[in-house]
């Protein structure tokens, strides 16, 4: 099947999803990221790889943190970064997505980092760039609808590899609202490609998609059962807008059943790590004692995220 992320030589030119990304490319991104990690520790936190390139952050949906980490990553590669608050400007005035893209291409954009509430929006942009013959312009999906958030998936893989080295014997649990989570999808695809021993999904039936078994995931509705013997626990944010009563009774009820506390975490392996893509809701999906505890690697995830985004942008720009 045609993979719009790859060029004719099979090299990565856009990053749209971790689904169907060959293992060699995943590994190349993680290996490259480990070299970029050191750049952020230098006096001069910059390398000249993307000097003279213009990276446009196109966030049609709000996300200060993801936008900031992409901005930092691009700046540490010496790119020029332009942040467009598209939700509040052109789009609000009625411009279509592709007209916005055409205008920015006319301003000599080299790369788009796109966040959009509609699944597939970055694909539409890639398809359009292809049609207008601008295959030199690269697209990074920074989260599209419920579909994918590949750089978060990759930084999660980086974090797991950093602490656990090898994927093959690992049991990884993803806990929470998997139905609405593009992070969960990106994690599951990447974990499968990297050969993780077992991937589990834990959550109330109302927040689990039906196709999980087809993705090779073991489903648990009981947190205690699901956490037993896990090496990695990935907590997902419970989005407040799901709290309208149709999917969940209340935040307190959710915490009682699915909140990660020191007591429930004790069921996982003693050296299990706890991850969270942020922003956290303390007391909803995670207890403060766990979030601030020795097993949490939530802040290292943020640091690794910069290096992973630097790796992705420099690999794309070079292909």
């Amino acid at each position, binding site marked *: 099947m045609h993979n719009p992320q790859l060029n004719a030589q099979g*090299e990565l030119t856009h990053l749209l999803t971790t689904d169907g990304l060959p293992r060699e490319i995943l590994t*190349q991104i993680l*290996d*490259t990221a*480990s*070299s*970029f*990690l*050191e*750049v952020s520790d*230098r*006096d*001069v936190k*910059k*390398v*000249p*790889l993307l000097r003279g390139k213009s990276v446009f952050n196109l966030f049609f949906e709000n996300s200060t943190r993801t936008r900031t980490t992409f901005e930092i990553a691009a700046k540490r590669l010496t790119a020029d970064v332009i942040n467009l608050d598209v939700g509040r400007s052109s789009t609000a005035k009625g411009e279509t997505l592709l007209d916005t893209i055409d205008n920015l291409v006319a301003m000599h954009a080299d790369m788009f980092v796109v966040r959009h509430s509609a699944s597939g929006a970055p694909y539409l942009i890639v398809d359009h760039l292809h049609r207008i013959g601008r295959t030199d312009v690269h697209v990074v999906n920074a989260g599209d609808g419920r579909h994918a958030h590949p750089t978060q998936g990759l930084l999660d893989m980086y974090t797991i590899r950093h602490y656990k080295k090898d994927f093959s014997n690992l049991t990884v649990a993803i806990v929470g609202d998997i139905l609405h989570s593009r992070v969960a999808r990106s994690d599951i695809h990447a974990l499968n490609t990297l050969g993780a021993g077992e991937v589990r999904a834990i959550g109330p039936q109302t927040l689990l998609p039906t196709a999980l078994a087809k993705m090779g995931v073991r489903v648990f509705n009981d947190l205690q059962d699901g956490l037993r013997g896990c090496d990695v626990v990935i907590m997902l944010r419970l989005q407040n807008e799901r709290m309208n009563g149709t999917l969940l009774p209340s935040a307190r009820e959710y915490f009682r059943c699915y909140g990660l506390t020191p007591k429930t975490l004790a069921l996982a392996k003693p050296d299990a790590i706890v991850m969270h893509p942020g922003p956290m809701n303390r007391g909803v999906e995670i207890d403060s004692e766990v979030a601030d505890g020795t097993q949490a690697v939530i802040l290292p995830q943020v640091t690794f995220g910069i290096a992973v985004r630097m790796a992705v942008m*420099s*690999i794309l*720009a*070079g*292909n």
Partner: protein
Amino acid sequence: MPLTHLPDAEAQCTALAELIRPQLLPNTMLVGIHSGGVWVARRLTQLLGLPEQIGLIDVSFYRDDFGEKGLHPQVKPTSIPFDVDGRPLILVDDVLYTGRTTRAAINELFDYGRPASIRLAVLADRGGRELPIYAEFCTWEVELRKNQELVLEPDAAGRLQWRQAEHA
């Protein structure tokens, strides 16, 4: 025509160490360029009785042909485990050719600080310079055609040796 005789790289390392020895200052540090330069730099620290710590540079993030070739698929982390400011440095590589790798390495070092000096030590200088770069310490000058390449690699016992490759 391939070179009929390739010199003993280990003996060259010993000769290179002797060239460097009189010029060493108490705080001189060696910086090896991945990967051949790192092997040579490690040999030199043993031969010169320097502290084991050396700098390692992978110039992939500083190359001037990134626009044409893209990022090298196996980038190694650069590691400069000492303060560069005010320190005399000796940059070590296996082969000096166009000088572009040396240029990239110098630029990268300056992102760590302002060294007192940087000098260049190589086992082989094959000519063909495209930049005003000069190796102060060099054990072997050799003429090669454009399609010929000198490769330094360790054998099964870990001894460094030269191999000559030809491209189409």
